């Protein structure tokens, strides 16, 4: 039997959530095998996600930040059941969906949708916008053709496009408009949870602001929960209620956004916040510049995954991997400094 670590249950002060847990992720792991030779023998594993637990409540936005390769996208894909977890459990709306297949999985998927990073590759260039947005409706509902068209028009207007746009093709739209189409598709089945993986990273600043505002409006209008994944700390802060910080396959800190940005505890979070260039901080910043690169997840360091770059490393950190602990109410951190 695998050990089940209970996920941090938090109700943060500034969350708009109702306190009902919508999604619970328990000790989720994904180890991708590294194969070699003619027989594709497994010679090692990339520990993309190495034991991540969190919850998302109804109407809550959980932000996940981290640098490339930290496993944030793999977490998103596992929650969506696009990638099979190696171990751990995903409980959505009271049901364990970790091993669901076929029709049952499809039924869950209508409550669980995703918005992708690249609005150029996530829309089929050969399909008119109408077919793109209608696809989930045709697959999952019994709607008549006329109802489908009505719903598509309604969705387009919800995301700030025109009903007439349904007959056009993706290449006729700008990046921001395409992202709106992707959002309309995600909304088609009235999902409860939307996973947005770097949904605004490919957009220009002025367009990024439009999409962030749209996502915030939709959340309020349709009582959505989001898992909002990004490498951009300021964007995550803007949209999230709580924020988790990932490093090398591990969640290292998780707390309400106000707490995280004003009182970060993990040295990685502190460094990340100080390294982010910020217009309003011109001329008055003290920076912590981390040395070196993120270690390879195929050969992660023993002990704390961050110890190789940590400015405050202690002997203990090299041997013992720190557990996630609640060091203040609602503030979880995996660091020996805060044991």
């Amino acid at each position: 039997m695998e050990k089940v670590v209970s996920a941090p249950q938090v109700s943060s002060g500034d969350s708009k959530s109702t306190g009902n847990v919508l999604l619970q992720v328990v000790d989720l792991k994904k180890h991708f095998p590294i194969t070699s030779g003619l027989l594709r023998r497994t010679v090692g594993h990339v520990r993309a996600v190495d034991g991540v637990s969190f919850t998302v409540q109804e109407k809550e936005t959980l932000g996940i930040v981290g640098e490339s390769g930290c496993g944030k996208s793999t977490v998103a894909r596992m929650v969506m059941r696009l990638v099979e977890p190696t171990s751990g459990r995903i409980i959505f709306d009271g049901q364990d969906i970790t091993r669901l297949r076929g029709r049952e999985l499809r039924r869950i998927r209508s409550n669980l949708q995703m918005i992708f990073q690249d609005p150029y590759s996530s829309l089929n260039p050969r399909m008119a916008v109408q077919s793109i947005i209608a696809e989930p409706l045709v697959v999952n509902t019994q709607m008549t053709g006329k109802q489908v068209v009505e719903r598509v028009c309604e969705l387009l207007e919800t995301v700030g496009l025109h009903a007439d746009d349904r007959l056009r093709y993706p290449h006729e739209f700008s990046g921001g408009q395409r992202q709106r189409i992707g959002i309309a598709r995600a909304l088609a089945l009235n999902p409860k949870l939307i996973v947005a993986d770097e949904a605004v990273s490919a957009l220009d600043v002025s367009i990024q602001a439009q999409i962030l505002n749209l996502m915030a409006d939709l959340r309020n209008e349709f009582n959505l929960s989001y898992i909002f994944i990004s490498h951009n700390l300021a964007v995550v802060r803007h949209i999230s209620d709580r924020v988790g910080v990932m490093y090398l396959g591990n969640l290292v800190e998780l707390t309400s956004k106000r707490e995280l940005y004003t009182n970060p505890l993990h040295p990685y979070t502190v460094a990340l916040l100080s390294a982010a260039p910020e217009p309003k901080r011109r001329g008055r910043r003290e920076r912590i510049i981390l040395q070196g690169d993120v270690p390879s997840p195929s050969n992660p360091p023993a002990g704390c995954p961050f110890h190789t770059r940590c400015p405050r490393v202690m002997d203990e950190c090299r041997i013992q991997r720190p557990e996630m602990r609640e060091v203040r109410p609602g503030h979880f951190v995996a660091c020996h400094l805060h044991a």
Partner: protein
Amino acid sequence: MEPLLAIEDLRTYFINKDVQVRAVDGIDLTVYPRQIVCIVGESGCGKSMTSLSIMRLVPKPRGQIVSGKIKFAGKDLVQLTEQQMSDIRGNEISMIFQEPMTALNPVLRVGEQITEVLIRHRKIGKREAMKRAVEMLRVVGVPRADEIVSEYPHQLSGGMRQRVMIAMAMVCDPKLLIADEPTTALDVTVQAQVLELMKRMRDDFGTAIILITHDLGVVAEMADHVVVMYAGQVVESVGADELFAHPLHPYTKGLMASIPSLDDEAEKLYSIPGTVPDAREFPVGCRFADRCPLVQTSCRERPPELREIRPGHLVRCGLV
């Protein structure tokens, strides 16, 4: 002080049959020695085409420098022959790009790529060149430099590749370094390392830098002087402290207000409505008019000039 680079009324167009795309449409830009000038703007504003025009690397045959002067160290780069220009590239002016993996040759070892520049411009032997390459890699903070020279780009991390690019760009001690979105593909912590390194290059070697970016955070970090571009034109040009303290053009203000901040909690972000106008048919008047919150009828009638509103603060807006 004499400017190192002075661009006057540069126009770079893409011409295809009867369609004319005005990518760079009459820009002026001055860079002094040791200065870091940031060109900031969104995709399609012409910032990258400006840098490619300086390097004379505008994609041919459709892209053409239609008019204007690029004065660099007493020469007009626009008038130089291809041969004369290639003596300057990598030697007096060098460039680093956004994606170091595509800018580096994947089948050449790191050392060969750096020595190539030295052998071409400095006429020195291979062994001497290799020694200089290793030295330069150490300067830019590449660990195990003597081993890295015999590795291939794919064996390096993104941050290391960008360091190799910088080593290659700096090895002939250029007067001007053009960096086109050098940290956009890098993670925040690595970006901080690379920006720090570029500043050190300026401080230690006196290299002037043109840094092209869409990120006002990077601008705040690096710039002495800032040029804001919109739809092929300069809309604001001013010292960096002044820009962040008193931005004047509505576009610059909008851009600043659109960025979510690490420090405050606005519920709603300001967003500039609409999108950039089509570079094939710019409006007659102000190009920002359709998105400007302060627009007036006069804005649409004739194009605003870039005027000096305060000493050293140039703005292209009829309302300021």
